[in-house]
């Protein structure tokens, strides 16, 4: 059975071009870039080129790009490194709908005596900017707020946030794992101090991330050891990962407009058709300010895991914010923060597309969806009218 992959916010296919690019770096060009001999040194050159490509995608200087092990490491480093560089400030501002890579760190810091403010969102998942404005003060060490949300795709006004932080001399970090590669960004015209990205969300392999650190931003190193990454992140480089991310960044730039138009069109088609053909379904998140690839739809009276398993039967991959899929007993913290009723949160499905999806895949899913939803509604004790 073929796989229809609509779970690209979880991870993406490695682009074939990326795979070709990194293939030699396992069995042939396996040298250590730190070595003195040319065999290793030639790898160092490739790493420099990859750094330049990533810098170009971000609109920053190559020296501002630090390669890390993953997005989570970038987030952890940004927060912990800033706090330890600014020991006199004891307040952290974040949002209620951050990824656990940020939220768990903040909550742990809270138990160590930091004051942590979690800014709320409205029913469309938009940040309460007024609350944020009131909270930023000269006690604040760091503001860490995501660029775009992984579950709904809603984009936050990070540039406005960054500007305010700059005024108050507060470091601003943004987890841009879901945004990079999907929407253009230019850090040279931005006030963002720190930014995290993850390779496997933009068709590079897993196990490679980046932390952008703006020149002049004080950050204490998190992983200590050798002199790699200018001493800011020790550990022998993940050479294939770095080279692969460089290639993926290049591809993302080449494909921005065309891919995003195509992906967005497919997403819109999938979304509007499902909302039309499945009664009692609703869209979660701000329609006007979203990533072009993400759609989060709630189906009332039925439960997300059951929907996913029926989709899986057709080879369709998606994800859900229901309690059952996470192994916890409560549904997604993002949907709850938005005030989505439990009834709808339990039945939420996220479709996230990529440039590898086709019209035919979208049509197939549109065709199968009503049957799946009706089938579960027939089982549901909360549906009394015939479906």
């Amino acid at each position, binding site marked *: 059975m073929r796989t229809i992959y609509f779970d690209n916010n979880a991870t993406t296919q490695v682009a074939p071009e990326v795979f070709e690019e990194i293939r030699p770096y396992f069995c042939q060009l396996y040298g250590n870039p730190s070595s003195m001999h040319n065999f290793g040194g030639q790898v160092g050159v490739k790493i420099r080129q990859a750094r330049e490509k990533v810098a170009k995608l971000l609109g920053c200087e190559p020296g501002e790009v630090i390669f890390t092990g993953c997005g989570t490491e970038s987030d952890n480093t940004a927060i912990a490194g800033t706090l330890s560089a600014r020991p006199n400030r004891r307040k952290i501002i974040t949002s209620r709908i951050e990824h656990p890579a940020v939220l768990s760190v903040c909550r742990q810091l809270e138990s160590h005596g930091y004051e942590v403010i979690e800014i709320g969102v409205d029913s469309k998942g938009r940040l309460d900017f007024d609350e944020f404005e009131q909270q930023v003060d000269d006690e604040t060490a760091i503001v860490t707020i995501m660029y775009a949300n992984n579950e709904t795709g809603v984009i936050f006004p990070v540039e406005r946030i960054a500007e305010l932080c700059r005024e108050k001399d507060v470091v601003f970090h943004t987890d841009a794992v879901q945004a990079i590669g999907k929407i253009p960004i230019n850090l040279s015209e931005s006030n963002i101090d720190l930014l995290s990205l993850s390779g496997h969300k933009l068709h590079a392999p897993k196990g490679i991330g980046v932390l952008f650190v703006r020149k002049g931003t004080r950050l204490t190193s998190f992983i200590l050891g050798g002199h790699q990454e200018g001493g800011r992140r020790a550990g022998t480089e993940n050479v294939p990962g770095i080279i692969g991310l460089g290639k993926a960044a290049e591809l993302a730039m080449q494909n921005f407009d065309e891919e995003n138009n195509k992906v967005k069109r497919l997403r819109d088609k999938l979304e509007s058709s499902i909302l039309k053909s499945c009664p009692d379904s609703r869209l979660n998140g701000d329609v006007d300010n979203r990533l072009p690839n993400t759609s989060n739809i709630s189906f009332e009276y039925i439960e997300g895991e*059951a929907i996913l398993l029926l989709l899986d039967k057709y080879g369709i991959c998606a994800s859900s914010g229901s309690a059952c899929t996470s192994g916890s007993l409560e549904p997604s913290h993002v949907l709850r923060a938005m005030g989505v009723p439990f009834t709808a949160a339990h039945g939420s499905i996220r479709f996230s597309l990529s440039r590898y999806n086709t019209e035919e895949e979208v049509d197939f899913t549109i065709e199968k969806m009503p049957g799946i939803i009706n089938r579960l509604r027939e*089982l549901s*004790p909360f549906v009394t009218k015939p479906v």
Partner: protein
Amino acid sequence: MWEYTDKVKDHFFNPRNVGEIEEPDGVGEVGSLACGDALKLTFKLDKNGRIKDAKFKTFGCASAIATSSVLTEIIKGMTIEEAAKVTNKDIAEYLGGLPEQKMHCSVMGREALEAAIENYRGEGAKKHELEGKVVCNCFGVTDKEIERVIIENDLRTVEEVTNYCKAGGGCGGCKGEIEKIIKRIQGDKIKEPREPAKHHSRDLRNIEKMQLIQQTINEQIRPALRAHGGNIELIDVEGSKVIVAFRGMCAQCKLTEFTMKDVVEAKLREFVAEDLLVEEDKDSANEPHHHRA
């Protein structure tokens, strides 16, 4: 991805006996939309008093649907007396087992069956009457219900109880009480908790003890309380007496005396010293909360 048995998958993809029997002899409804699963069971008897037909409607995940489907198959042909003896374990076993975290689905099946039998016997409304005192407010689970899953499934830990009936899976505020119920029922059967770190309890200097208490509160206790809008502050340590104050939601919570103190005490005994006693400082309960303690 959950690892479901073939039998679970079969009953999820091809559920048996879906629907509602008209003019049923027994109706049982449990669960709710908010809880994430709900089941309505109806059955009809033949003239010999055996269950002739049973049907279900279920809102929930794959294992909830499979459990309901299999339940209708199990009880068909049974007398009411026989059906009343069906346990959640029987249901899970019939499916070749369920993932630990999904065991509550089998309990929901048994509850619905019980409610339907009660309804048939005219003992109550078709809504399952809650028996006992509510322990877990998040999911509305009573002490009787918790006792029952512990006994029927020989459960030994709070985590297991959460897997089987959801109690303790929301804010976690009732975990202390669940632990007490487990202790009461299982008694000696519970393995002695890990040897409390002896190097701690042996000869802690005062300053070490205080630091450890503070550290334990910071790392082990506060995060759980923060999760539902509460907080705790260490006020003082006098010998083996630890004086704390509860803040935020915890301060107004009527259950404070009963659960929070127990959780705090259990954690402090586990990580610091066996002889510690926790007392609540009532005087400071109304003071504003200081973030930078």
